C-alpha cells in the first residue's frame, strides 16, 4: 500500500533514526524516490541533525569555576546544601535511626504454635535480660542495640545545641523519649513471658517507630 505524503512526513523522524520496521522503511524509501517534496523534507531534516551532530563536544566555560568548586568541596562533608553546619551530625544520626527502624520493621516474625509459649499471665522472671527475651530474634536484638546507640548520639547532638533550640524543646524531647522507653520496657518484659508473641513483637516495632518519628520531627523542625 502506497503511503501518502502526510504519512511519510510523520514517519520521517523514525526513518532517519533507523527505528522504522523493515516494511515501513521500504515504503518510505519508495515514496522518497518518487516524491520530490518529501525528499527535500527528508534532506533538510537530515542536514539539521548533521549540523548539530558536528558541533564540538566540548565548550569552554566563560570563566574559571574551580575556585568556587574548591570552596564547596572544602566545606565539611561537602554538604553545604543541607543547611546550617551543625545539623550535619544530626542528619547523619537521624539517618541511622531511620535505617535501623526500617531494619526492625522488615524483620519477619515467626509465629509458632501457641502451645509452646508460656501460659499467659505467668510472671516474667525479673532478672531475665533483654538478650534472653530476644534470643529468638538476634536480628531484633542487634537492631535494638544499634538503635539505642543512634538515639543516644542524636540526643547528645541535640543537647550540645541546646542554646539554639526553642526553649523547652530538649526537655519535651527527653520526656517523650522517656515515656516511650517505659513502654518499650514493659513490652520487653511481656516478651520475656511470651517470647514468640507476634503481637508483642509488632508492638515493639510500633513503639520504636513512635520514638523514631518523635526524634525525626525534632530534627526536621530544628532545620527550619
Amino acid at each position: 500500500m502506497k503511503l501518502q505524503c502526510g504519512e511519510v512526513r510523520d514517519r520521517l523522524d523514525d526513518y532517519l533514526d533507523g527505528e522504522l520496521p523493515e516494511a515501513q522503511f521500504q515504503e518510505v524509501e519508495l515514496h522518497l524516490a518518487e516524491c520530490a517534496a518529501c525528499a527535500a523534507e527528508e534532506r533538510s531534516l537530515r542536514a539539521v541533525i548533521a549540523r548539530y551532530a558536528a558541533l564540538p563536544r566540548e565548550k569552554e566555560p566563560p570563566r574559571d569555576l574551580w575556585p568556587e568548586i574548591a570552596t564547596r568541596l572544602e566545606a565539611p562533608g561537602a554538604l553545604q546544601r543541607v543547611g546550617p553546619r551543625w545539623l550535619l551530625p544530626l542528619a547523619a544520626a537521624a539517618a541511622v535511626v531511620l535505617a535501623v527502624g526500617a531494619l526492625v520493621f522488615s524483620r519477619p516474625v515467626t509465629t509458632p504454635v501457641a502451645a509452646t509459649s508460656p501460659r499467659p499471665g505467668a510472671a516474667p522472671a525479673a532478672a531475665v535480660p533483654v538478650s534472653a527475651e530476644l534470643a529468638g530474634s538476634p536480628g531484633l536484638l542487634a537492631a535494638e542495640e544499634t538503635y539505642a546507640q543512634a538515639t543516644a548520639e542524636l540526643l547528645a547532638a541535640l543537647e550540645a545545641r541546646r542554646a539554639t533550640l526553642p526553649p523547652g524543646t530538649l526537655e519535651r524531647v527527653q520526656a517523650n523519649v522517656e515515656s516511650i522507653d517505659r513502654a518499650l520496657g514493659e513490652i520487653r518484659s511481656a516478651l520475656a513471658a511470651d517470647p514468640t508473641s507476634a503481637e508483642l513483637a509488632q508492638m515493639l516495632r510500633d513503639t520504636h517507630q513512635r520514638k523514631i518519628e518523635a526524634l525525626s520531627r525534632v530534627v526536621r523542625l530544628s532545620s527550619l
Partner: protein
Amino acid sequence: MRRAQEGDVSAFEQLYRDQKGRVFAVCYRLAGDPALAEELVQDVFVRAWQKIGSFRGESALSTWLHPLAINVALSERRARRRRLARVQPTDDLTPFDRGQSPRVPEAGVDLEKALAGLPDGARAVFVLHDMEGYKHEEIAEMTGVAVGTSKAQLHRARRLLREALQS
C-alpha cells in the same frame, strides 16, 4: 584518580581541568542559559566529589562523569519546573502545533543560539537524542515522560531548529 578518591582536592582539580569542557557543553545545551550552566557545572563536580569513592574504574572517568552531569542538569530542570508550576501551568508538553511560529531568528543565528531558543522540553530531548546519542526509551526514563512524548518533542525540536536556521 586514586588520590582524588582518597580526598586529595588538588588531584580532583585535575579531573575538573580535564572534563570541564565536556561537562559545560552538555550543561549549557540542556539548560539553554549560560549562567545556569555555570551553576550546574559546579553542582556536577561537587556531586562527583561526593560520589568519587564509589567509582571502581570499570569505565573511563569521562564515561562515569557524563551521565552524572546529565542527571544533575535534568534534576535542576525538574526542580525549576516544579517551582514554575506553582506559579503558572507549563505548556511545554502540548502537542506539536504545525502552525506554531518559531522564535524570531536573527540574521546569522548560530546553532547554539537556535538551540537555546527552543522550548525547554524539546531542547532537552533534542540534546539527549541527537547530540548525546540516547534512545527514546532511555530519555523517557531520564526525563519522566512517555516514549511517545519524547518522540513528539524530538519531531518538534528538529522542525523548529530547521525553521530557525533557514532564515
